């Protein structure tokens, strides 16, 4: 919209050069939230690509019944590592680490996070944990084959390298806790003058809710992982039925973290969508308070529903009833968000650029994922589709179709701000379109397969499932082609695309009020906030 002001001749300016330091050490030891944000971005994104590759291999193996390209043990390792990489190394640290770090301090009008050195330490812990996980794949008894859930007693007995992998996840979890502590403190203490809680951008609200989940849930994962290692190394037998332990207790402890972890993955994604929709509808957000409140409500209610993963594990009927009820409660704040987004779109002046397309597809795919979640949340229907491909399809609709698509939306929305250059619009839309089509072929087919009774994590299947499995694999290839086009276009654009001005989209949040790329100090002088985050007129945007 704005003709480029303050344009620099060749790409980089702002925090890229204004400290006078370049080279690798100025990055990996930097305490600047923007540099750390980009470190996080490239690390989590690297692992995302690894996860994609593993996922594609899983789909090729399942393309036809029987052995296609690998043996059963390799297959078991593959779906385990795919899950561990995607969950613990990509999407859990993904939003908070990359876009949280890049954007949140600027959005609240601060120079940095509350604890910049701790922030850097979090990234180092993440890298250390990731290195340990990678090491576990190639040493000892080989890559773990337990599934990313590490269910006992199998994970105690398998000869694969579970202990080391679990230790790596523990370290990554510690990193996540420290990020949570840092963000809650930052949002409480470092808001600029005039940045009241009611003027906080909704992305920040979602990060705030997420940070609380990280603080309150991750320690339970920590102790659970320690217990797995103790089971394996010391033989404590706390989850071993032969020794008086109860495997169900493992499942409780694991899901006390890992269900809320789903909200660590999806809440910031909802925040991204909430930022994109009003800007591309040229209209203030509808229902600011309810969206902010619903983030907290999802975080709170979502922490009490873990038992719905265990309806078939032998819990009491009372527990099943309570957990089922609470699961339905989570649907309410989620629906509040969806209705508010749709109301924002109503009579807006909608501009269908790449970030907006991802945000709109988020609403659709997340709604499908969320509603199929209710099928799983109701005990009566869950018993039929539990541990089938229906669950796999549902989960990917929420986390890939939801969080993943929002992540791509955020990449197109915010990365040009930090690189100073943008992607080309047409290839981005082509890439998005292919991804959207491929995605639905890939995962909707899985849900149908699940309804027909195909179990998940099985290496082989009955001949009647062959046709749909083939279709699903075709979908994965369309998705991959779309993804390749999208990424080549985006990254080429960030390197050598058209330069962008300070406010290419016409947003009213603070990050659009400072130069592109932002200087290291963010604001030349401490800002005083006089208007809301979606008050476009107050921000002087016609």
């Amino acid at each position, binding site marked *: 919209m704005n003709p480029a002001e303050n344009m620099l001749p060749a790409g980089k300016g702002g925090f890229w050069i204004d400290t006078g330091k370049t080279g690798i050490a100025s990055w990996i030891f930097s305490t600047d939230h923007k540099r750390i944000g980009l470190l996080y971005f490239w690390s989590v994104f690297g692992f995302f690509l690894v996860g994609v590759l593993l996922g594609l291999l899983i789909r090729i193996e399942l393309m036809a019944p029987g052995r296609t390209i690998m043996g059963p043990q390799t297959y078991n390792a593959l779906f385990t590592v795919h899950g561990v990489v995607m969950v613990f190394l990509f999407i859990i640290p993904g939003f908070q680490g990359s876009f949280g770090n890049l954007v949140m301090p600027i959005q609240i009008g601060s*120079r940095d996070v*509350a*604890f910049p050195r*701790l922030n850097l330490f979090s990234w180092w812990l993440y890298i250390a944990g990731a290195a340990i996980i990678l090491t576990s794949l190639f040493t000892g008894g080989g890559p773990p084959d337990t599934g990313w859930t590490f269910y006992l007693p199998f994970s105690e007995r398998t000869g694969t390298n579970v202990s080391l992998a679990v230790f790596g996840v523990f370290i990554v979890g510690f990193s996540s*806790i*420290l990020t*949570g*502590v*840092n963000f*809650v*403190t930052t949002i*409480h*203490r*470092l808001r600029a003058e005039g940045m009241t809680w009611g003027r906080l951008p909704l992305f920040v609200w979602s990060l705030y809710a997420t940070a609380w989940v990280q*603080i*309150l849930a*991750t*320690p*339970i994962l*920590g*102790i*659970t992982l*320690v*217990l797995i290692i*103790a089971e394996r190394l*010391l*033989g*404590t*037998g*706390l989850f071993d039925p032969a*020794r*008086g*332990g*109860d495997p169900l*207790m493992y499942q409780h*402890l694991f899901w*006390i973290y890992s269900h809320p972890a789903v909200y660590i993955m999806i809440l910031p994604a909802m925040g991204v969508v909430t930022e994109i929709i009003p800007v591309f509808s040229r209209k203030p957000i509808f229902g600011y308070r309810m969206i902010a409140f619903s983030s907290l409500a999802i975080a709170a209610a979502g922490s009490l529903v873990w038992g719905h993963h265990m309806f078939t594990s032998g819990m009491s009927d009372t527990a099943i009833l309570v957990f089922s009820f609470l699961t339905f409660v989570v649907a309410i704040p989620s629906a509040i968000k969806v209705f508010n987004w749709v109301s924002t779109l109503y009579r807006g002046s909608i501009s269908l650029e790449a970030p907006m397309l991802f945000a709109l597809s988020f609403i659709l795919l997340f709604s499908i994922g969320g509603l199929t979640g209710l099928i799983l949340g109701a005990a009566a229907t869950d018993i039929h589709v539990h541990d089938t491909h229906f669950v796999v399809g549902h989960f990917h609709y929420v986390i890939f179709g939801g969080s993943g698509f929002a992540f791509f939306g955020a990449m197109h929305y915010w990365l040009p701000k930090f690189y100073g250059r943008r992607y080309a619009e047409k290839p981005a839309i082509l890439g998005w379109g292919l991804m959207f089509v491929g995605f639905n072929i890939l995962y909707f087919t899985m849900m149908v397969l699940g309804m027909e009774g195909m179990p998940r994590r099985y290496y082989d299947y009955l001949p009647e499932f062959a046709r749909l499995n083939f279709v699903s694999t075709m979908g994965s290839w369309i998705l991959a082609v779309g993804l390749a086009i999208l990424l080549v276009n985006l990254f080429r654009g960030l390197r050598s695309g058209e330069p962008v001005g300070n406010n290419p989209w016409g947003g009213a949040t603070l990050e659009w009020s400072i130069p592109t790329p932002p*200087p290291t*100090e963010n604001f*030349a002088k*401490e800002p005083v906030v006089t208007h809301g985050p979606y008050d476009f007129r107050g921000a002087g945007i016609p």
Partner: protein
Amino acid sequence: MSQPTHKDYAGAKLGMWLFLFTELLLFGGLFLLYAVYLSRYPHEFAAAGREMHLVFGTVNTVILITSSLLVAMAVTAVKRDDHRLAFVLVGGTVVCAAFFLVDKYLEWGTEIGRGIYPGSPRLVAGPAGESVFYSLYYLTTGLHGLHVLIGGILLAVVAVRVGRGSIHAGDYIWLENGALYWHLVDLVWIFIFPLYYLVL
């Protein structure tokens, strides 16, 4: 363009309190297992609990409560700008931490001498609830002992910094947060002690 570097004391303390919550929850997982298994094996837990050595536990309780008092006094001493006293008090806390670990070592040694450790032949042959009790005992006190060690190291660093004068009445957030951490270590023990040594 550069803004003055300012220290946000309230922020640093808020961060520490949040971190302490996560520590409580870490132990919370073990206390949860204790509660569930106690309700499942009340008799075995009671029998095993009666065999615990109350003397070791009591000595450690006294040591930890004393150390918490010392570190709290150290904070007051620093606020009054009495460096020598603060140094002695923090040093005393570190000594208490060391004594605690020695006592814990002696206690574990005694238990292992009785053939009680995870996976030991005696526990494998005995009732299932007993094995669960002792596994939980070793894990909980082990994790707590690790925190005593970390807290002791942290306070040793603080003591050095008090001695050097880089922690003083104008800037004592390190000491205050170190003391908060140490109170957490103490507090967790205040729950471990009755649950394993007294109530059963």
